[in-house]
């Protein structure tokens, strides 16, 4: 029965991974940018939350109210300045600039804070602890909450994109940037909005991760970026719910790996990723292979 527990944990962790991944997916879908600093931004969100909690003493659970808007504004600003400048110079330069940004952020965090791990903790609230089904299955409330938040965010994103005016503009720009300009849309502004959403969701993911586990300057790449990417590839590029599926598959694979051998948890996830890449490179949800 420990296996069932592992699988359930894996499924719920998938929500967290989907939250990591949706910003990455969005930025790629709308502006064809793969933001290599994506994970590091989540870590920044976590550190900012830590600072906010330390200063204002609000419960960790509510820190996102302050942090997410800050990160969203940061996202808009960074997109309109640095990333747009890189985009204007081509795909190669954009990758190099975001990679540079990632290294600078991590080194900066190492330099100005330290290499230690921190955790946001959960504080005193009802969500510490877990509920049990039978004697062998224990589901932490926090994990359940994170999964619920992930689903809510994905739903919100889906509705935003399909029903709202800005969502329509984002989809239009993603389809055809020039045609959108001809309809009066400033695509740079739309890119900024998409980046703001991406930064906001990844900050939320960072806070969630910070509460559930520990984070340090290198968590951004070691854990968040690579897991987000694996989730996207497994699930299938270009599909929000595919990303959730990918996250779930990744989470389950990791937990099963941990059951076999504790040290192999992360590796097990990557092995599944490589298998999907080898056997079904378009991902699990895409309909046909893309060239």
């Amino acid at each position: 029965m420990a296996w069932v527990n592992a699988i359930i944990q894996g499924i719920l962790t998938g929500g967290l991974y989907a939250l990591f991944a949706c910003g990455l997916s969005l930025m790629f879908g709308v502006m064809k940018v793969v933001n290599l600093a994506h994970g590091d931004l989540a870590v920044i969100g976590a550190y900012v939350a830590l600072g906010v909690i330390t200063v204002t003493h609000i419960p960790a659970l509510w820190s996102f109210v302050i942090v997410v808007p800050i990160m969203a504004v940061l996202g808009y600003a960074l997109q309109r300045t640095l990333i747009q400048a890189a985009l204007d110079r081509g795909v190669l330069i954009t990758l190099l600039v975001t990679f540079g940004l990632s290294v600078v952020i991590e080194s900066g965090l190492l330099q100005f804070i330290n290499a230690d791990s921190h955790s946001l903790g959960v504080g005193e609230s009802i969500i510490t602890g877990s509920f049990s089904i039978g004697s062998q299955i224990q589901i932490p409330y926090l994990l359940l909450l994170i999964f619920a938040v992930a689903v809510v965010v994905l739903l919100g994103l889906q509705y935003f994109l399909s029903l709202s005016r800005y969502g329509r503009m984002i989809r239009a720009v993603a389809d055809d940037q020039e045609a959108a300009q001809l309809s009066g849309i400033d695509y740079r502004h739309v890119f900024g909005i998409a980046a703001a959403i991406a930064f906001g969701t990844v900050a939320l993911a960072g806070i969630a991760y910070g509460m559930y586990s520990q984070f340090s300057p290198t968590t951004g790449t070691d854990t968040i970026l690579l897991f987000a990417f694996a989730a996207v590839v497994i699930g299938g590029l270009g599909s929000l719910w595919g990303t959730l599926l990918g996250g779930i598959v990744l989470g389950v694979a990791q937990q099963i790996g941990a059951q076999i051998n504790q040290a192999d948890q992360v590796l097990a996830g990557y092995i599944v990723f490589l298998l999907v890449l080898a056997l079904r490179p378009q991902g699990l949800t895409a309909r046909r292979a893309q060239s």
Partner: protein
Amino acid sequence: MSEPATERADNDSTPLLEVRDLIVHHGQLRALDRVSLRVFPGEVYAIIGANGAGKSTLLRTIAGLHRPTDGAILYDGKDMTKVRPERRATGGIVMVPEGRRLFGSLTVEENLKVGATYARKGPWTIERVYEIFAWMKDRRTQRTAQLSGGEQQSVAIGRALVANPRVLLLDELSLGLAPVIVQRIYAMLPQILSTGLTVLLVEQDVSQALRVASHIQCLLEGHTTLEGRPSEVTAEQVEAAYFGLSPAAAEGSEALWHGSTPSSRAS
């Protein structure tokens, strides 16, 4: 020979849209070489020419998607050569691009809604577009990628119309469409014009252009070879201008003959 020019000038002294000595490059290639034109309100101004003559480049530069190397573009007398394309669109210059360029993952209605995002005030609404294209309302929730070429062209035109432009730029409407469909689309033109629009269009189908236009201009390898009213040009003159043949073939016309064949222009 200058009578048509004064006739136009009497109507309105400031052209709605004017291009002065435009020079545009594609990399090292000079695509447009000192091209000028003037479009007055209410006109249907057609630009014709063979492939590679620079017609679409001209339209794209007017729309703002291409930066000229030299020259000026004036709208209502004001210089807007450096204005961004989206500002031109919200200012009233809206283009229906070559190849339709619809938003493939969006539905018909969503395409129209996007076109109306920053619409100016005016008579055109999405409902009005549904009126002139009768089939559209029933299919409005369909993804545009699934429509036929002619239907896509109608949606593209509708998307431009709902923005309530003052100048409508049509880039190669006939491209890739059956002649019957093309005729049907051009037959809509009077309805569109009745609301006070001005149209600047680029067309490879010369006879179609001559049928709808109040004024035509022919481009060849980046410069103007003919300009005038359809009623004043002969078929031989158009042919000569289109292919760059010697002016001896073009006799006795009232149209403005620019006589610049390949032999006489500076390289």
